[in-house]
């Protein structure tokens, strides 16, 4: 028998029992909808996490942090100068697998003020590479240049929120050329960074719920705590950046900041960017070889890579997706059982018809195909409606919670969900089809 004829019979059969078919399909529709909605939600969450990772420099960014040297070297630890600008120079010359080196001296809790307005923030002394390694984008003006480093200029580049908070009366003001004081020392603003936010925050802002929610949260946890919580957020930190040339920070604030009055040359942060991710380990080995010399043989440094962060994102997404598909899969399975049930009822109703078809020459295979095509069609239509329902379900989720990560529907998720529906449709027809095709034609003709 021709497949198209089977399809036609299937459609006719479904059309003849519209309501019954719809009820049967409902299981598949809801199963597909929840499967796809779940895929879209996890994808949205994963996307949000990947965005955050990318915003903080991506996987290729590696932090060189301090650690206790190995035990046999502990008595000699004082020999090491720690992380200094010497490391930066040595890395730039001796580690070709690293394309960017970004040192950072941090001055915590600095009074950043303009006329009578003061906020307290961390101020960083950096090199030009800072922007690229940290994925900062200049919105107006320019980034600190090598000339600023060499000439020890008193210039600053500030984050978008800093500008907003220092010039609250003038939203969206770009304070190029203005002077701000850092612990009383005047600096000229030469550039501002673009506002950096996640998709979720962006929508939150556009929906206008941000202020209300923030207020509610502050009321709940107290102002101080709320502000603290914010500071762990990559986006918050980036928007509150105040950066000045590393040399300027050293000469203005560090020349006598050690307890004994000597200058503090140590870097608070040292980030590098690996040029080629496929040579990640090699690059780290190179860095290790360089730094062990500048640190006079003391291994008082370690690497903080984002690979683990990245892996965590991927594995938690996988786990969420797995458990989600398991649950959605169960509802699809229930839908499939519904189809089997209806198909069994339907063939019982049609035993005589099956007998007639067999009598006029239908082979067992023809009957089998007919029933499987019918249940496959139910799965197919149910799958299509399910995709539409998933779209609706996702819109509903967005409506209910507009500030979370937007669900993302991927082609593969659509194909997988739809494929599952058709597959379940066909699978659930197999047993009824087998039953129908093995009916004895004589018995079937006599039936009823």
């Amino acid at each position, binding site marked *: *028998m*021709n497949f198209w*004829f089977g399809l036609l019979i299937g459609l*006719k*059969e479904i059309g*003849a029992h519209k309501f019954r078919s719809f009820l049967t399909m409902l299981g598949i529709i809801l199963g597909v909808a929840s499967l796809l909605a779940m895929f879209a939600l996890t994808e949205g969450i994963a996307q949000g996490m990947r965005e955050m990772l990318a915003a903080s420099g991506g996987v290729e960014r590696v932090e060189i942090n301090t650690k206790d040297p190995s035990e046999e070297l502990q008595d000699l630890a004082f020999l090491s100068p720690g992380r200094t600008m010497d490391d930066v120079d040595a890395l730039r010359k001796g580690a070709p697998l690293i394309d960017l080196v970004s040192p950072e001296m941090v001055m915590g809790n600095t009074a950043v003020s303009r006329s009578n307005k003061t906020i307290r923030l961390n101020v960083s002394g950096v090199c030009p590479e800072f922007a690229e390694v940290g994925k900062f984008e200049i919105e107006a003006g320019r980034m600190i240049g090598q000339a600023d480093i060499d000439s020890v200029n008193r210039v600053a580049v500030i984050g978008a929120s800093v500008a907003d908070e220092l010039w609250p009366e003038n939203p969206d003001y770009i304070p190029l050329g203005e002077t701000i004081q850092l612990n009383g020392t005047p600096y000229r603003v030469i550039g501002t960074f673009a506002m950096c936010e996640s998709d979720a925050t962006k929508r939150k802002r556009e929906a206008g719920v941000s202020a209300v929610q923030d207020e509610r949260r502050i009321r709940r946890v107290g102002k101080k705590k709320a502000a603290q919580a914010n500071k762990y957020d990559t986006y918050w930190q980036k928007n509150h950046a105040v950066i000045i040339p590393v040399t300027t920070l050293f000469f203005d604030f560090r020349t006598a900041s050690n307890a004994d009055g000597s200058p503090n040359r140590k870097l608070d942060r040292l980030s590098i960017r690996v040029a080629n991710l496929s040579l990640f380990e090699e690059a780290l080995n190179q860095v290790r070889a360089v730094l062990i010399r500048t640190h006079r043989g003391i291994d008082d440094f370690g690497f903080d890579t984002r690979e683990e962060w990245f892996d965590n994102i991927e594995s938690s997404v996988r786990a969420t997706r797995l458990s989600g598909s398991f649950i959605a899969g169960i509802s699809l399975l229930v839908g499939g059982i519904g189809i089997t049930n209806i198909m069994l009822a339907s063939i019982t109703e049609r035993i*005589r*018809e099956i*007998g*007639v*078809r*067999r*009598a*006029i*020459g*239908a*082979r*067992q*295979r*023809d009957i089998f195909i007919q029933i499987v095509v019918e249940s496959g069609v139910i799965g197919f239509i149910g799958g299509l409606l399910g995709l539409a329902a998933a779209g609706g379900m996702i819109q509903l989720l967005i409506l209910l919670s507009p500030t979370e990560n937007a669900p993302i529907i991927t082609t593969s998720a659509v194909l997988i969900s739809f494929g599952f529906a058709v597959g379940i449709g066909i699978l659930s027809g197999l047993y009824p089809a087998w039953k129908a095709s093995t009916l004895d*034609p*004589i018995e079937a*003709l006599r039936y009823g």
Partner: protein
Amino acid sequence: MALVELYDIRKTYRVGDQEIAALDGVTLSIEAGEFLAIIGPSGSGKSTLMHLLGCLDTPTSGRLLIDGIDISRASNNELAAMRNAKIGFVFQSFNLLPKFDVLRNVELPMVYAGVSAKVRKERAMEAIERVGLTNRIHNTPLQLSGGQCQRVAIARAIVNNPKIVFADEPTGNLDSHTGEAILTLFRELAASGRTIVIVTHDNTIAARLPRRIEMRDGQIRIGVEAQVSNTAPLAPSSTEVVAR
């Protein structure tokens, strides 16, 4: 060679631990173009005989040839192919598919024969014209009278141009007038050279047919059936008993 040849056909059913012989050694041949009746009371084995002749079943033992093909041990698929190509059925209760219109019902055997849609329609229209229902092709069986339904069934039975048409009590559900018209149609078909076998318990119908085979207790009643072919070859050996 005759169109249908049966040699010592036996068909037994097991009911519990008891064996019941529905057919108990039937030997028979039907020539091409014959128009005959198989008669007998219920339980005589005439239905079983028709099922075997109609390739719906295989005998427990014996040899059965239709159009020269031995189907005594044919597989399920071979039987289906035989039914499709060489046999037409007309049932007492018409057995049309209620969801399809007349045209589709008549086309159905050709669907399983793998005939193209265009040829299907042509040949179905011919068969429908032959039974005189050309103006009803788009009606469904529920919109037709019993006589019309049986005409559709006859069209369906002849559309694949089978070697032999079996009609099982074709007038049983019809009033006498309509039944008469159906019989006339059969007679016309027979006159145009078709082989037709009518299974009935109605002697008044059978009496008007050229040949009658009367069944009684699973056997052909001696004396009534006088035209049994004596050209039968060797009786089948016991190894030919079908083990199924």
